């Protein structure tokens, strides 16, 4: 699979990573090379093979419905680049 510039720009946008225009071509080449490499999987017969979610041979463990966490707003906010009045702050979002 060969990715073109436009596709790379689209993926970069989906991933919210700014990629300078002049890097798109090079990146498209690299990503295409990786995709070509992984496409050898097409050779493997996977008919009726269940896709693996986890290698851990167990089922989902559950916790009790008890409040055991939270209640430490300062700790939660202490690393925030911008906070005010107990909130995280970001540029205005228009809905």
């Amino acid at each position, binding site marked *: 699979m060969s990715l073109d510039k436009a596709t790379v720009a689209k993926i970069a946008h989906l991933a919210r990573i700014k990629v300078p225009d002049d890097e798109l071509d090079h990146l498209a080449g690299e990503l295409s090379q990786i995709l070509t490499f992984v496409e050898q999987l097409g050779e493997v017969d996977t008919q009726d093979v269940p896709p693996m*979610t986890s290698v851990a041979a167990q089922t989902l463990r559950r*916790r009790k*419905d008890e*409040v055991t*966490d939270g209640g430490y707003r300062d*700790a*939660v906010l202490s690393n925030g680049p911008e906070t005010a009045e107990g909130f995280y702050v*970001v*540029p205005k*979002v228009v809905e």
Partner: protein
Amino acid sequence: MSYIQGETGDWEIVIGLEVHAQVISNAKLFSGAATAFGAEPNSQVSFVDAAFPGMLPVINERCIEQAVRTGLGLKAQINLHSVFDRKNYFYADLPQGYQISQYLQPIVGKGEIVLDLPDGSSRTVGVTRLHLEQDAGKSLHDQHPAKTYIDLNRSGVALMEIVSEPDMRTAEEAGAYVRKLRSILRYLGTCDGNMEEGSMRCDVNVSVRKPGAPFGTRCEIKNVNSIRFVMQAIEYEARRQIEIIEDGGKIDQETRLWDTTKFVTRSMRSKEEAHDYRYFPDPDLLPLELDAEWVEEIKRTLPELPDDKKARFIGEYRLSPYDADVLVSEKARADFFEAVAKGRDPKLAANWVTGELFGYLNKAGKEIEESPVSAENLGGLIDLIADNTISGRIAKEVFEAMFETGEKPADIVEKKGLRQVTDTGAIEASIDAVLAANADKVAEFRSGKDKLFGFFVGQVMKATQGKANPALVNEILMTKLKG
């Protein structure tokens, strides 16, 4: 029929609803932070909810149980194997950059909800699925002119997304659906259904078509937070779509908002971009396996739900379907009624509950839980009527006082001296006085003017301030008039 008249003829609305119902639980779906409403911003946030590096989700068993209970209440298929997926997108109040949800394999499959329509008919709406997912945080846009403030208290709270089939055709049906679903959730104790606090929110899918035509292109109206708005938004949106089509335009599939000040729907700018959620199974979690025996156990502990209760009220108490509907719509109402009806005439109990009590509550803007008149006292009032202590008419006066003061009916009757006069001597005396004062009318009656009987009864009741036992008045009056 339920069509909308357009310039080119009839149009039919097709409606499907996605209801997000907040699960009643102490802690969040994947973290141990509290879920209470109205806490200080970011005070109920764990490092998991704020998606700090290295934090991992562990599921709350109560939330699973609540989802299963709800599924059973919707007579739905419970999937013993289900999977949690990540729904990837960026948003300020979505700290992980993905929402943990269930995509291909939800915990609950197909079910149904029976709607009771105002005309007494009922209609079954299919439930496509129910799945568990995390709620997002809250963005506040009005705190600062150039900034949005983020509160993550709600981030990670468990939601049940309940998706209906596109089975509804009118705004009323959609309203009835939400009401019924809310009622079922409250009966089950799985969601408090409080739409003002956001614990129940609706995404409404609306499209229009000519009757019999295939489905049209739908628009999704996001996050509508009251039943009234759901109905208004549908009406508005249907007309908007019809106008566009009749003007030769075409509907763009899009996400819209209900503007609660202008009463219009409008396109959501933040959702304009095409999404690609890149769902995949969450590798931090394993598939959820339920034990069939455990599901059966939950089934055994389900409360009687509105449909069954209604059937029982009709069968056991001989109530009309209308009265039964009104009474079972909320569990608290049904419980109140049953407490009043116990050992009494159920028809009379129903009349008092749905008539006087609901009337007064409605006027006072109170819920049944806040009723100043307890079920015990209303029952006591009915007992006073039954044993002839007071008449039905006086009872209404007593009820008014009960609603105002919350006092016991017997106390009010005593205090106000409303006890019914059953002393035949006293009644005879009153009757004699009335007959004496109206000799001409007595003569007319005796010459065949039967209708005057009512006049005499009225005069006697007036003379006794309504306290005379009406049956005795009738009996003695008749004897004397005929004599």
